[in-house]
């Protein structure tokens, strides 16, 4: 096994928690930014940084609705993100099966 098998983008604890949380939703369901933040207990700035990295990789997509104070950002796991998380999970299981 190579280190590449464990996707470094997903391997960071905060990003792993984000992806696992979004993966628990049904296909194409979205989760609001505020609920995600409350669930994984990150500061808004920290969460935005991680979400940007995941979005740049195409693992999640985000959508902003409304304007001003009433605006709301919601995020969803993409097919690519779900596949990457599956691959990561398999790689981790393979790695740990040798213990």
């Amino acid at each position: 096994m190579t280190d590449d098998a464990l996707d470094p983008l997903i391997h960071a604890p905060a990003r792993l928690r984000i992806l696992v949380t979004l993966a628990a939703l049904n296909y194409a369901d979205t989760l609001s930014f505020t609920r995600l933040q409350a669930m994984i207990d990150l500061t808004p700035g920290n969460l935005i940084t991680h979400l940007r990295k995941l979005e740049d990789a195409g693992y999640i997509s985000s959508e902003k609705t409304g304007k001003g104070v009433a605006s709301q950002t919601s995020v969803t796991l993409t097919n690519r993100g779900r596949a990457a998380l599956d691959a990561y999970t398999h790689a981790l299981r393979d790695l740990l099966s040798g213990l």
Partner: protein
Amino acid sequence: MLGAAVFLFGYGAVWCSMRDQHPYTGPGGWAIAVLYALVIVAAVASSRVLNRATTGVTGRARRQLQAQGAAFAAAYAGAYVFMGALGYLGVSYRIVYGVYAPTAPLIVVCAAAAAGAAARENWPQLGVGIAIIAVAAASAYSGPVGAWGYTGLGCCLVLLGYAAALVVWLRRA
């Protein structure tokens, strides 16, 4: 646990209000009030838990939940409208309020819940739905007083068993 309490204390109150009746006159007003108060408390608590769990979630899951809620409301309302029709058509008070009321609406609503659980492949919930249907259907044979008592006790035991199984399963996970 809340559902089990509704069955034990709500149905139990109605059974208590009728158990020494000779001749049969039907459930006492206080007992019906206790039953509906408990049903309302359980419904409000369940909707709060559901709202908390789905806050911030949009999309298919929320639409499915709303559609399921509409189906449950229609099933429940339909069963009670049908009960009204039975009374209107002159079916005995003992049958309408003694046998039909504690069992038939429960069977209808649990059938809808069991179908939803089967569609989601949620086997434990499907099992609970089928068990409650079986308890309610069998309790109907015990007459207008026994139907309330046996349905209440049986459904309480089914829900307590489900809660205990969930606790064991969560501890093992």
